[in-house]
């Protein structure tokens, strides 16, 4: 007979979980595995709310397993390490992102691309090696294999750094992979949310000229004054669009709603690259003539491998890049999800797990 979430593993844990596709989260008692030889256990201090968490609690991708404890931007302090752990020690500040396991023997794993391993295990809602479901960071403790633990430098504010574990790597990886992380490039960032605002910061740190492309003129001041973008393009304004045609080396498209990429392809210079980071659920129209006539490309990217995530954190620490966040107590999480659905956040909610979870249970 299947064990309950509370009985499955030896270490008690508490968190908040969604029970069904209404997506409403509520207190949830479960358990974590014992600390294995290569495991690191940490008490969770903060967890970022990623838009993917919202998609998953509502089962919008059809893959959710309930009860679902979301959260893959998890940071905290090490409380226990397995006997063979070398990377960190008790008291260190660490994090876990989107992935907690992979096969470790395929080509992707051997190239530090665990996220693309066919047997990759997500931090929540996935099946772990022992057959149990993984539970994410909206919880009091976390345990993960050393390979999937990221180290945070002491001087980084942990709450504002948490979103780097998904949003940060999701923009950093393609900027490097597609050759856009070079001084003097003109990069466009479409959509100014969790991914977009961090995209602006990283692109600026790489020395690029950055233009925020948005349908909301209300974001202009924020983009220019606060985030340091070089310019702002209102994509619903035909004149502004036409004046900018053929001027971008690369565009990061963070919008997950259905939208037209035809104007974005027009904005690219010859040999320019449109990188899709949001994943609309239906196909988009691809105009072929402009793609061919300008030798342009449309590509995608999803987070990054463990080595690159650590590299990204170290880069962010060096350049003082963190997310702009709104810290909330855990019992605000359902309201936060509603506001997130309307894009009403600047620019990531981060749950103050350390100070609010215990009292909520």
């Amino acid at each position, binding site marked *: 007979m299947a064990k309950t979430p509370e009985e499955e593993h030896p270490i008690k844990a508490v968190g908040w979980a969604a029970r069904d596709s209404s997506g409403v989260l509520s207190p949830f008692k479960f358990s974590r595995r014992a600390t294995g030889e290569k495991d690191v256990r940490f008490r969770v201090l903060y967890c970022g709310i990623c838009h993917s968490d919202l998609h998953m609690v509502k089962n919008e991708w059809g893959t959710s397993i309930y009860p679902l404890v979301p959260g893959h931007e998890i940071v905290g302090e090490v409380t226990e390490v397995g006997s063979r752990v070398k990377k960190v020690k008790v008291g260190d500040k660490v994090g876990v992102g989107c992935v907690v396991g992979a096969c470790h023997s395929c080509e992707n794993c051997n190239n530090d691309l665990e996220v693309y391993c066919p047997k990759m295990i997500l931090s929540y809602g996935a099946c772990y090696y022992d057959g149990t479901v993984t539970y994410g960071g909206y919880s009091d403790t976390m345990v993960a294999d050393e390979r999937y633990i990221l180290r945070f430098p002491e001087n980084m504010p942990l709450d504002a750094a948490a979103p780097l574990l998904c949003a940060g790597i999701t923009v950093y990886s393609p900027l490097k992979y597609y050759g856009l992380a070079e001084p003097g490039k003109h990069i466009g960032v479409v959509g100014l949310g969790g991914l977009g605002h961090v995209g602006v910061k990283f692109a600026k740190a790489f020395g690029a000229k950055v233009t925020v492309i948005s349908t909301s003129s209300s974001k202009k001041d924020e983009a220019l004054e606060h985030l340091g973008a070089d310019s702002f393009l209102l994509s619903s304004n035909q004149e502004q669009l036409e004046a900018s045609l053929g001027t971008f080396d690369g565009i990061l498209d963070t919008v997950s709603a259905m939208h037209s990429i035809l104007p974005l392809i027009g904005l690219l210079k010859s040999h320019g690259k449109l990188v899709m980071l949001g994943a609309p659920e239906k196909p988009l129209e691809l105009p072929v003539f402009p793609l061919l006539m300008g*030798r342009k490309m449309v590509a995608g990217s999803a987070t990054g491998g463990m080595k690159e995530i650590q590299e990204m954190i170290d880069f962010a620490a060096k350049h003082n890049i963190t997310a702009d966040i709104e810290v909330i107590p855990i019992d605000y999480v359902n309201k936060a999800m509603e506001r997130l659905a309307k894009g009403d956040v600047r620019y990531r909610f981060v749950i103050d797990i350390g100070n609010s979870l215990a009292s909520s249970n």
Partner: protein
Amino acid sequence: MAKSPEEEHPQKAFGWAARDSSGVLSPFHFSRRENGEEDVTIKILYCGVCHSDLHIVKNDWGFTRFPVVPGHEIVGVVTKTGKNVKKFKVGDRVGVGVLVGSCKKCDSCQQDLENYCPQVIFTYNSLYHDGTITYGGYSDAVVVEERYVLRFPDNLPPDAGAPLLCAGITVYSPMKYYGMTEPGKHLGVAGLGGLGHVAVKFGKAFGLRVTVISTSPKKEDEAINRLGADAFLVSSDPAKMKVAMGTMDYIIDTVSAVHALAPLLGLLKLNGKLVTLGLPDKPLELPIFPLVLGRKLVGGSDVGGMKETQEMLDFCAEHGITADIELIRMENVNMAMERLAKSDVRYRFVIDVANSLSQ
């Protein structure tokens, strides 16, 4: 008052043109410009029939100016050279491909990518610097600026080599640009026509494993036994497509009709690259999830610059790569167009201009 095609320029010329979007070609008297200081006059020996010629004569893309003399896979012999011409002399065998002019000043031109110059001038149906329309290779002679003329290697047959000037470079350029040349990697070629059959040959020359992806099972024998492909995948067979998912590093998609990209993206491995080269008249549907989850890309490409086209011709001479052609007489060009529309050719028609074009 606008001059007639015959009066526009000082040198008389003769070819075949389409007069309207019926696309029917017929004899046409026109004229070529005086051979300028940078120009070379070429007596045309052969001209390939590219699928783009068919699209243009029927005005499929909506920008044809009639009368149009198509043809941008031209091989011929130099008969005259302007005084500043250094690369060629009378008697040289040369080729002219898809472009005959550009601005020469922009970033693309400076990087030997004249084909991407915003002011590129195509070999036919384009406005030349002097405001007149360019006429292509279904004709007796052409005058071209030296920069846009290619040396045609002696050991390449001029008839079977003619299609390299468009089909060849159209496939060669993206294979190099998108890095589809690592020996041992797996290339899929979708569509087995003019572009596709040349892609198979280049793929093998680069040391790749090549699978032809086609809707027609009857092309399998040709693909494997004659063109040297390693495997053949019938894309309309769901079971076979499923087995092949995630097995290809690269795909060259030469299909010009509107078609589904999703199954092709599914065939790619992680970091796989799909280059689409056909020009359908409507947008294609692009599913985004596979791009994001597999870090895949869909790119376009359009012929190549002059330097790269020369490099491609020399590569073909070295590796003995030519197109598989059916040589036809000029007066059979309309029938060839009809057969081309039905993909009934293995794999390019080439017009024997010098031996069949008569007034």
